[in-house]
């Protein structure tokens, strides 16, 4: 192909698509339309987080809301359910710091997270929430298991019971924050697709956490009426949030949420954990509904992180959000 032919080809491509995917061909004054911003370079930096963070969001949400269910189970004398839920919370509390540490650029300095407390930084608040959750959940589970399995006689039993109750209350308090703060973490950034939905994100992450905790407990054999009600509630909220996300569009600023890979991830996940889970529950296919919800909640976190990456690379999104 001669140079002239190549130039013609580039011109055709430029007129068709408004952009040419090549390097060094988008000079102004030339035949090729210019990309927006400075040669299409990103204005804000896309997140550097990898697969650990979405999985942590999923596990953290599940563990946190499990602790809440454990608390309710303890209050309403569903001890078996409370124990299983506390086991889930403890496993989550053990995995979360590991995932967070692997994602760090310098994992050996992970303790620096607890060096200061900064209420203005959701990451700092979150690190302390994870720490406090772990500090409540692990001794809470030990106390609960000791109290239910063994009998030490009089005073010790009474003490263990009160101790376990206090720690489970603490777990529920930190757990509910653990499940929702991740939405704040994404919402308080400079990425338009995230900060434009800073109100939706904590609700979504909270309800996804509650739904997945319910779903997993149901899959583990706790088919009780309260969990079923919570499953319905979570699926209904997810459906409502999907509708909200589809209505609350901000044009170019958050188009990453509606098109391409992250768009399909978010849409697919909302379909799985929203309408599909709801229909499956209505038709009494509870295990299938639980699996659908878990899958949806899992994929959704990847979708949101991927949307942040796509949106962060897109200068037009930043300009549109500030226009």
């Amino acid at each position, binding site marked *: 192909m001669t140079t002239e032919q190549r130039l013609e080809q580039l011109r055709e491509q430029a007129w068709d698509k408004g952009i040419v995917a090549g390097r060094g061909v988008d000079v102004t004054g030339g035949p090729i339309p210019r990309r927006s911003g400075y040669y299409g370079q990103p204005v804000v930096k896309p997140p550097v987080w990898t697969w650990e963070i979405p999985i942590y969001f999923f596990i953290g949400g599940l563990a946190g809301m499990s602790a809440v269910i454990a608390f309710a189970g303890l209050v309403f004398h569903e001890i078996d359910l409370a124990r299983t839920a506390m086991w889930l919370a403890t496993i989550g509390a053990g995995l979360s710091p590991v995932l967070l540490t692997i994602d760090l650029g310098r994992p050996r300095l992970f303790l620096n*997270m607890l060096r200061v407390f900064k209420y203005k930084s959701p990451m700092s608040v979150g690190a302390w929430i994870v720490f406090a959750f772990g500090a409540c959940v692990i001794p809470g589970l030990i106390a609960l298991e000791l109290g239910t399995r063994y009998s030490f006689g009089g005073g010790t039993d009474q003490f263990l019971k009160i101790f376990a109750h206090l720690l489970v209350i603490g777990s529920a308090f930190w757990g509910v924050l653990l499940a929702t703060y991740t939405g704040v973490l994404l919402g308080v950034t*400079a990425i338009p697709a995230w900060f434009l939905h800073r109100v939706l994100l904590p609700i979504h992450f909270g309800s996804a956490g509650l739904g997945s905790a319910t779903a997993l407990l149901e899959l583990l054999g706790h088919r009780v009426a309260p969990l079923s009600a919570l499953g319905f509630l979570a699926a209904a909220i997810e459906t409502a949030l999907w509708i909200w996300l589809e209505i609350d569009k901000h044009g170019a600023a958050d188009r990453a949420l509606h098109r391409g890979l992250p768009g399909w991830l978010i849409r697919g996940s909302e379909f799985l954990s929203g309408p599909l889970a709801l229909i499956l529950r209505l038709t009494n296919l509870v295990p299938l509904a639980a699996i659908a919800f878990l899958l949806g909640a899992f994929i959704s976190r990847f979708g949101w992180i991927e949307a942040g990456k796509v949106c962060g690379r897109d200068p037009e999104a930043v300009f549109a959000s500030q226009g």
Partner: protein
Amino acid sequence: MSRSWKVRRSPATSFPVVCRAVLLFLIGLSNRRPNLVCRRIYTPNSHLPAHRMAEDFRAVTARRAKCGETMIGEGTQSTNQRRHNYVQENVEVGFFTGPTVCIGCKACEVACKEWNEVPDDGFTWIGNSYDNTGRLGASTWRHVLFLEQDCQKGNQITGLMGLSDAQSEDPFRWIFLSDVCKHCEEAGCLEACPTGSIVRTEVGSVFVQNDVCNGCGYCVVSCPFGVIDRRPQPLPDAGGAFKCTFCYDRQKSGLVPACAKVCPTESIVFGRLDDLRARASQRVEQLKQSGYEDAQLYDPQETSVRGIHAFFLILGEPEAYGLPPKPQVPTIYLKSAWTSALLTSIAALIAVLGAFLFFG
């Protein structure tokens, strides 16, 4: 084994040497000073010996300093060259960077890399004008933008001097601007940092303590200008977040940041922030009078960022330079996001307890 250490001098080399010596001797006798013997720069003070010339230069600059004329291009008296103790005096400092005198030499990029020992992050060809650096990042703390625009620059006359409309060319301008960390008054990265690694220094700049940073990556998404980034493997010091340090180490010793020190046209000016702001508005007025209608300052003081320590003079709109038109520090979203999270938390607790109460 014996070896002769006698120096052998070949006639071919010795003959010209002898000739030149003779020639010099003769010229010296003749009291003439042709260029090949002694090059002298003829300036008004060139009759003075070298040390007197330097003294004279100092006297002139001192005299002009007394009249309050110490501005750009004042040699050793320039704020880019003279020693200072801003750190000790807690003076707010800044960079004022303008494209109108930048020649795109990238000396600032090089000096920054050299002084701060920033590793090279690959020789990739981007091919956007003369820019192959791309953008600011963990290993690029100064970045010279090369902007090609189809609009007029000042009183520029293009093409064939307007002989006829058909022959005259479209207006075209080539703008260079050295981009850098803005050192915001309300810095997103500083607020976001969970380890307290990012701090505010005495001179108002934002500084990352490399030994404290654990590379969580939250500052990366919190910077409204997309400056700070996490350095990828396998570069040295990988994993930590890096950005311009405002040459804090140099400033502590009374030195000027490396980029400003080397800038040959003083397109990057370092100095007291209040002085620079005054100088910048003067410069904008001056440019507007000389036909640069679209000259403006990029210093977002009215947004939540509340002004930047490294501010810019730009021609045209900030978007073309990859600068956000209304940058916001993400902490302004804290209130609504946490309200949502706390209400969700309370609702979740009530919902779970309610479910067990009514369905249990």
